């Protein structure tokens, strides 16, 4: 899952359009910003406005086209239009050591080239830097690494460097990249391996030809699976230890990627925290993080795990306030159309799910609540709140198992382990 953000002017435009077309749209917003005491460098913006939606039947997302990958299982996706990169996983006819490069300018993604990552068993994650200059691919298993490519020609990535160390030996499960105070870093979630401990490894990519490891933290219970970096905060998915928020320079208290400071932790219901998205909505509110729970399943057939909405108004004491559940399917990676307030979630055998995440997600009627007496926790059920907008790919009369999604420019791109890459029209 990668943060591909829409430009601010587009956000403002779409916000206005959204407000104009929704008779039950957000009420007047509280424009008062919030700088939490635990992180004064971040303004979390106004409290999200109340929003009441009618219960409707989710629409089917319109499929524009798809590109097939029959020899390998497809894994993660990263798109920088008009090019998409999909990685590969495990062993089908051949091992998942390839990154496919697709032309997605038309409705049907067209495979234009590929890159073989030598020594990789699985290339489970891929990211494009915010300036579009670098492509970073994570490799599993031993020896785990990241491969850093130059994207001067986006259709012909050129290998700049391959970073590996004894700290990544077990395998790099995900590699998220983000800029902190102007400097580009990669955050590597490393498998447990024979050491018996997962870890998060931070690599300075200022000189992408010579990546430098700047921090290692043994963490995760038992896994650390993914991260989300934005505005100097790092959200870390620690499986049964929940989601943790690290200050890596955003709070203005002296922390940095080299010397991070833990702000707070939340253990979401059921644990198995796999991925995170810190949502900045069109009104400027930054109060929610979406947490993906990855339960056990069988690839191609079943999956489990909900989306959990965490209120981070106090980053030192984040709290789960809502959730989204699909019977018989579980979520994987996210992408959010922040301008329109739509969360797109890869849902494995459940296809692609589009959820309306505008406004206040933590306030709902009693009928829309789920009360967990064991945890003394009341949460809003997003489905009962009428926020399930659309479902994608379940109308294709074929087995799908969607690993990743990315919203970009009015389209949603989905990587499907079984089939390859799909291009769909956005739900809004």
């Amino acid at each position, binding site marked *: 899952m990668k943060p591909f953000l829409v430009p601010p002017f587009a956000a403002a435009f779409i916000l206005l359009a959204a407000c104009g077309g929704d008779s039950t749209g957000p009420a007047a917003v509280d424009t008062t910003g919030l700088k939490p005491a635990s992180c004064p460098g971040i303004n979390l913006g106004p409290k999200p406005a109340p929003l009441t939606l009618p219960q409707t039947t989710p629409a089917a997302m319109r499929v524009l086209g798809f590109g097939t990958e029959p020899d390998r299982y497809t894994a993660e996706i990263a798109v920088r239009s008009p090019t998409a990169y999909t990685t590969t996983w495990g062993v089908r006819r051949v091992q998942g050591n390839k990154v496919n490069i697709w032309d997605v300018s038309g409705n049907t993604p067209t495979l234009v080239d590929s890159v073989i990552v030598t020594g990789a068993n699985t290339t489970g994650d891929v990211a494009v830097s915010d300036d579009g200059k670098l492509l970073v691919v994570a490799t599993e298993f031993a020896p785990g690494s990241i491969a850093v490519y130059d994207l001067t020609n986006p259709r012909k990535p050129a290998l700049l460097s391959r970073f590996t160390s004894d700290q990544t030996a077990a395998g790099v499960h995900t590699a998220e990249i983000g800029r902190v105070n102007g400097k580009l870093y990669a955050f590597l979630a490393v498998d447990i391996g024979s050491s018996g*401990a997962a870890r998060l490894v931070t690599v300075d990519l200022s000189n992408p030809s010579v990546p430098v490891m700047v921090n290692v933290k043994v963490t995760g219970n038992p896994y650390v699976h993914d991260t989300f970096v934005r505005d100097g905060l790092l959200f870390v998915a620690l499986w049964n230890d929940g989601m943790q928020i690290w200050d890596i320079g955003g709070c203005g208290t002296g922390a940095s990627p080299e010397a991070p400071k833990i702000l707070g932790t939340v253990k979401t219901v059921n644990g198995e925290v796999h991925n995170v998205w810190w949502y900045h909505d069109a009104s400027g509110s930054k109060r929610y993080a979406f947490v993906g729970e990855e339960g056990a399943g069988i690839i191609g057939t079943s999956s489990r795990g909900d989306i959990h909405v965490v209120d981070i108004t106090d980053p030192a004491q984040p709290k789960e306030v809502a959730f989204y559940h699909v019977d018989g399917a579980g979520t994987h990676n996210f992408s959010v159309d922040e301008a329109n307030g739509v969360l797109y979630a890869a849902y494995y055998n459940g296809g692609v799910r589009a959820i309306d995440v505008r406004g206040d997600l933590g306030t709902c009627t009693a009928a829309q609540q789920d009360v967990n007496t064991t945890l003394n926790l009341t949460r809003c059920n997003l489905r009962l709140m009428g926020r399930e907008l659309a479902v994608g790919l379940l109308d294709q009369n074929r087995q799908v198992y969607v690993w990743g999604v990315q919203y970009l420019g009015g389209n949603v791109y989905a990587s499907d382990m079984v089939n390859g890459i799909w291009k769909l029209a956005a739900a809004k």
Partner: protein
Amino acid sequence: MAQAVPLATRADPTATRSALTEGYLTQPIVMAHAWYGPLQAIGTLNLEGLTLQRGELTTGGYGEGYVDRRHPHAYVHELLIGAGGTAAGFGASLFAGRGFAPFGSDDPMVRPFEKYPVNHHLAQVLERVVIVGAVRRGPVIAEVGTFNGDEPTGPGSVPKFSRVGDSWASRLTLLPLAGVELSASVARVTSPEIPQGHGLDQRKGSLVARYAYASRKSSRYALVEWEQTGERDRGVLITKLQSVLAEGAYCRAGTSVAARIERTDRPEEEPLLDPFRTPRPPPDLSNLGESRWTTLTIALAAPATRAWFVTGQPFVEVARLAVAPGDPAGIFSSELRYGTNRMWMFSAGVRLWAGMMHGRMGRYGVAEPDAGMHMPMGTPKHAAESDTMPGMPGMPGMTHSVPMASSPSRFSLISSCGP
């Protein structure tokens, strides 16, 4: 006692989609029993970590990060100490140490085939730090044990002592007739594949019927078992693996023939670059589905011969395997993995041993059917009548030729049934 099996195996095809022929020194073990007053110590040193690091070609086999190869077992296969006694018609024993949980059937190493069945990880729970209590009255044996759920991660791995007590097993055995044994067992194993915990938990069940008979000139053996393992994530059933196995052996004048048929579900996992290995611990969602293996194995063994203090017994085994999609099949495809759904395995080797053979493996104290209520704790089991056979080189003669209360030792079952 020491034993080893020089072995050659040809698997055609196997996970490389081609035929492989390999040689090993497999099952190199040293076993010892010791007694001191009421105390008994049991030790089995397994040296497969030195001779079988890449694993033994066993198409269909899986477990502990190996697939289509049998993994090397832990150096410390068994190391237990215990005590027991009888009173008022009851026998009781308590053992603790590293060994077998009271679940399922005997370890395949003490059964009439060199190749392990596919269901090894469904039918036995071994190499754990166990505390096993057993109570026996007449033909009924009840066992209960607690142990650490984590399975070994390698031959030299140390169990997670902090997890002792997170798993348990219980077995009820009935000995209705001489030589006949019926048992039912259940187990709950917490996160066997992730030592740190939080992996899939297992709920296991097993039914076993076993028959063994030996006379001065021949022996017969049969076993039928059913196993089921449910893998659960936070209590929710994710996969259900079942196995049905029947095997039998007949030995006369030193020559034995044995046959086994098995149908077992195998969980399929993401393989590594080495197609015979899977990541341990698994990184997350890597379950490809289930495959269903049907295997027919025939084994023939010639009469044993002895040179100096070592006894050798040549044998051959042939296995025909068929693999089909399980339920659910997920994305596993035998055509993709093997290029076919029918395979052969051919094996030839020589069982070598010196010293008194170990008996059955997987039960302790009064839970050993051979022990009988008449056998006071602390008595060497190999002094018991039922555990020795006539004419076995290096072994004392048998003192009776009637159906035994339970089984004779393994090699008497296989072929050492007298010239």
